[in-house]
Structure formats: C-alpha cells, structure tokens
C-alpha cells in the first residue's frame, strides 16, 4: 500500500497549490451527422473542474451527459465529431491534440469508469494481466513492481484478499467487485481527472454505497478531479461538490450542490427535483414534468424545455444565453425561479 499512497499524497499536495482548474470545457459542441439530420448531442456546453473536486453531471437519458464525457476523452466516433469549442486539460487543448497525444493521456492522466464493468474488462484476460498492461502502457516499470502496484490499487478500493483477485478472470467476480476493479484501474496511474459514467447504476444499493464511499475517499485523498455522470440526483446530492444539470445537449444550471438542490433556479431542475419521490409527501401525487424528453433531431429553436415548461412564453423562442446569477451559479433560462418564489 505504502508506495502508491506516498506518491499519491505528494502529487495531491502539489496540485492543491495551483489555482488553474484541471479541466476547462468551453462552448463545446459535439454533433452527430446522421442521414436524418444533425443530432446536437452536446450543444454549447461549458464547465470546469478543479483538482480534488467532484462535479456531478446530472441529466436524463439523451441529455448528452455521456457524450460530453466521451468528448473530453476524444472518444467520439464518426458520424459524430466535435464541431467547435475548446477542452483544456491542465492548460492543454485536447480538441486539437494529436491522436497519439490523446492515447498518451487516456488511462494515464485522464481515466474513465464506465457503467458496465463487463464491457471495460477483457473477459479472456486475468485481472492482473489487464492491470499490469495499463501501467506498462504508460511508464517503464518491471512486471513485479507493476503487479505490486496493482495489488495496492485493489487494496485501496477495498477488495478483500487482493492477491487472489489478481489471479481471477472478470467473470469470476461479482458485479460490485468488477466495478471496483474498474475503479482501481482508473486510479492506477494516479490520473488528474476521472470521468465516471453512471458507474453505480447497475449495482445494488448496498454495493452502490460502498462504491460511492471508495470514490469519494480516493478523490479527497489523492486530489483527483472527478466528473460523476448520473441520472440520479440523490446520488450526486451526497457525493458532488458542484452539480451541472443537462437537458437536451445543454447545461441548464450549474452551482454548488446545496444551492442547486435546495434552491433550483431552472424550471427543469425544479421539475426534476420535484419528481423525486423522497421530495414529496408520502402517498401524494408526484410533481411530474409533463411530456417527454424531445428528440435531438430537428430540435425546435429556442429553449429546448419550452414545450414542457410551465413558465414558457414567447421569450423562450429565443435561445437563452448563460446568465451568471451569482459567482459560480449559472443558468440558461428566461424565467428562472428567483428568490421571489420564496425558493
């Protein structure tokens, strides 16, 4: 445990000194050019994450939250591509970076945890082979030291008897255990940024709590910045420092977790929070949002939420610009729920 932890502690203290955010995304547009038309999966998205910070990226399916994550890693395949915008990772632009440079960063400085650990782990390779490969791909280290490092990483994410697990194949592990291995691999090279795409959605609540616990503790200890993509606001409420809510390819609201959950400003955030059962009185009807998420093909101009929004009027036919309500609090709405609503 000691070797890995020492280096981790050191890097984190170094990082804390710098005020530059680890990741800055500016006006990112990722579109998919299909026969039916351009799908604006990510449309003018801007956000940033600092070292040691957990950003919760919340939204329903089709809101573009996963594509935002894939864009950062340069994992957009044709017919999709990044149309415009900048992704700066530690000051370096990733949109214009060469494929070799991205290859060098992925799994090394930026890691990703996917929803389904069965997809990310190679079913025909033992856990240790995969972990050692991930280390040796990015640094010169002999096999024995790399294996020790893999052992430490498994121990760090709370896997009992890591020695045995190293020799196991992915199918011999349970879902929760596999996801921990995936998380351990993400942390192997002490990345500056981890993008977690719904890593606990497929897991049971008790296992989800364990994974959240590990992820949170590791980020605090290592100073790794994290983007936690989820559809479950209750998960990010307990985990994230800041929340960004996405709807139809745009971030509609950003702010500190407490502020967004307690005083949501955008009608969509208000609706989304209102439809969570625990926010309602037991047995009462839930405050549902009418309608359904729009198709991203041929999205009407203006605010994408206007058809479902109780506050929509003629103003909403114009695309709302990002307004900074207060420092660190941004919304995209013509009629936000400001304080007069009593919050």
């Amino acid at each position: 445990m000691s070797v890995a932890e020492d280096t981790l502690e050191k890097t984190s203290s170094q990082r804390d000194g710098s005020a530059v955010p680890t990741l800055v995304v500016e006006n990112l547009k990722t579109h998919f050019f299909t026969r039916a038309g351009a799908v604006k999966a990510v449309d003018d998205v801007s956000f940033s994450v600092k070292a040691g910070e957990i950003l919760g990226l919340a939204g329903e399916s089709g809101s573009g939250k996963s594509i935002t994550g894939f864009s950062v890693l340069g994992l957009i395949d044709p017919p999709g591509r990044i149309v415009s915008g900048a992704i700066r990772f530690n000051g370096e632009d990733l949109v214009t970076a060469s494929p070799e440079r991205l290859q060098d960063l992925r799994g090394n400085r930026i890691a990703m945890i996917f929803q389904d650990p069965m997809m990310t782990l190679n079913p025909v390779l033992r856990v240790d082979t995969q972990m050692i490969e991930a280390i040796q791909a990015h640094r010169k280290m002999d096999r024995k030291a790399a294996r020790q490092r893999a052992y430490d990483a498994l121990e760090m994410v709370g896997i009992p008897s890591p020695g045995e697990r190293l020799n196991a194949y992915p199918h011999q592990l349970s879902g929760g255990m596999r996801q921990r291995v995936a998380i351990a691999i993400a942390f192997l090279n002490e990345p500056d940024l981890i993008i977690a795409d719904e890593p606990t959605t497929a897991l049971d609540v008790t296992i989800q709590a364990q994974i959240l616990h590990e992820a949170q503790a590791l980020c605090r200890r290592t100073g790794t910045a994290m983007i936690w993509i989820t559809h479950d606001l209750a998960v990010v409420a307990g985990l994230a420092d800041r929340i960004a809510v996405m709807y139809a390819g745009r971030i509609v609201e950003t702010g500190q977790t407490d502020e967004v959950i307690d005083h949501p400003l955008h009608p969509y955030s208000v609706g989304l929070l209102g439809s969570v059962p625990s926010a309602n009185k037991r047995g009462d009807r839930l405050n549902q949002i009418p309608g359904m998420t729009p198709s991203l093909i041929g999205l009407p101009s203006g605010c994408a939420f206007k058809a479902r929004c109780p506050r929509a009027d003629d103003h909403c036919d114009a695309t709302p610009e990002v307004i900074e309500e207060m420092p660190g609090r941004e919304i995209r709405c013509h009629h936000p729920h400001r304080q007069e609503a009593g919050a």
Partner: protein
Amino acid sequence: MSELVSAGPPLIEIQGVSKRFVKRLDIAGKIARRLGAGLEEETVHAVDGVDLSIDEGDVVGLVGESGCGKSTLGRMVAGIMPPSDGAVLYKGRDIASLSGDDKLEATFAVQMIFQDPFSSLNPRMRVEDIVGEAPVVHGLVPRKGMSDYVDEILTKVGLDPALKRRYPHQFSGGQRQRIGIARALAVKPKFLVCDEAIAALDVSIQAQIINLFMDLREEFDLTYLFISHDLSVVEHISERVVIMYLGRVVETAQAEALFAAPNHPYAQALLSEVPRLDQRKRDFQPIKGEIPSPLDPPPGCHFHPRCPQSFGPCSSARPVLKSIGPDRISACHLND
C-alpha cells in the same frame, strides 16, 4: 379499506411458499457420478418459506437486493411459476386447486407488469392487438367491440388511442410501460404485481408512471404488490413494506413505522444506504461484503456474516419472524 378486510379472507395469501431451482447434472456429470465422482445436483433456494397476506386495496412494497428472490416471489403470486412448496391463495382458495371458471377468474384477477418495456411487448403485434387480444379471446369483450374497448383502456393509461395501430418500437420507454399497464388492465384485474415496473425509466417519466399507478388504484380499486430495489419509490407508494434477504423475509411493517425505525439490522443498513436528496456531502458508511450466493447460503441467519451486531446464535439457528409491534414482524435474534 380496513372495513373490507374484516369481511373475508385476504385477496392474496401466500402460505409457506418456497421455490427451489435445481441445476440438473448433464450427461458428463451423470457419468462422472456413476464412476464415483462426488458430484451433486446444485439447488438454489430462491424463495425459502415466505408467508404474506395482502388485503384488498393494500399496496405492499417488496424490497431487496438483486438475487434475494423478490422477483421469483412476484412471479409465483402472479401464477407464472408454480411454487415448489406451499400455496398461493386467492380469496382463501388455493390457486393450484382451482379449475374451470374459478381458475380463469383467479388468473384474470392477478396481472403482472414487467420491468423491461422493451422485451415484454411482442414487437410484431400492433398495440391494439397487444391490449385487445386477451379480453377478446376470453370473451370479456366481443370482437366487434375490441376497437372501442382498446380506445377506452388506452385513454385510461394516458395514451392517445390514435396510436393504437402502431408497433411497440414506435414508442418511447415511458409510453411502452403504459402499453404494458394497459395490457394488464384489459382483463379487469383486481391485483397487479409490478416487478421493477419503473426501474428502466427516466426520473421525470418515473414520476408520471407512479402517478398513473396511484390514479388507477383509485379508479379501479386495485391492490398492488410493488416489487422494487428503489426504496424511495417504495416508501412513497406503499402502505406496507416487506424486506427480503436471500430468499427470506426479514422484516414486515407499515411503511411509516419501518422508515422511521427499522428493526432488523439488514433493514437498518439498507435504509441508511439509500442516497437521499437531503443528505449532503455525507460520508458513506457501507455495510461490508456482498449478498452471498444462494447456492450456498450461510447457516443460521442469512445476514450474520455481514451483520455488525451478530452474536452467538446467529450463526447456528434460523431466526423466526416474531411480532415486535402492531402489524410488524421481524426475524432477528436480537429481539429474543
């Protein structure tokens, strides 16, 4: 509702129901056994001696982690799967012993709504036929009246009847779930088993479907067995909650009482680990370990290897469900 209860037997009663799945030996295994290899058939106790009674108008939530047997129990209640032991009673009579019209009545009365709205609808049938087939075949509606009847049911579940000539793939997930609900309602059931019926849906659509369930309950006097791993949903909709762990019921109580003060250590752990909007920046304090394999469950109390409060008898004696308050039972040695 409680007045109805005293009038007769409960709508659905489950008596000592167990379900075992046996993995039979293949030919190679049988030959190996004949040659002296110590091979045994493997048995999974998916459901192990569960009792439960559900009164008319009740909404019972059935909660547990994956692999605890909640779906298997739901399927046995819905009559899709026969129990290995025990009996499922409809209005006081064993469903397995019924025949003729009585059996039909019991079969219609209990309908099931499935988790996955993509695989539970026949992709090659139009919505009209999916919803209308069963009532026509069973003579509940004349064939001529099917079209109007389908319109009526679709309107009830919030779908535009103009869409009934479409195929399931032309609908979104939330709409498909409404089609599944319409199909169940078409045979005029009294009791719906909802097996993770909203798990596959987006948050805003989940709220719509939960509201629909509550509206339908009022309109048709429905009784629900609501199976879910999502405690916040169960807390919202249920009057009574049953918590299962590895094939056994560990605690049953009124929803309010249970969520206020769970008795069984597993119930306590489960409830404390549900992420909630009002808990911020919390330090997650997870229970250790994972649900053991039902092929080889631990002896005594199934939960004892993960239980922070386990002591002497937990590893040897199976705890029995005991009354620990009004309408409340729990199976834990700590209550002795």
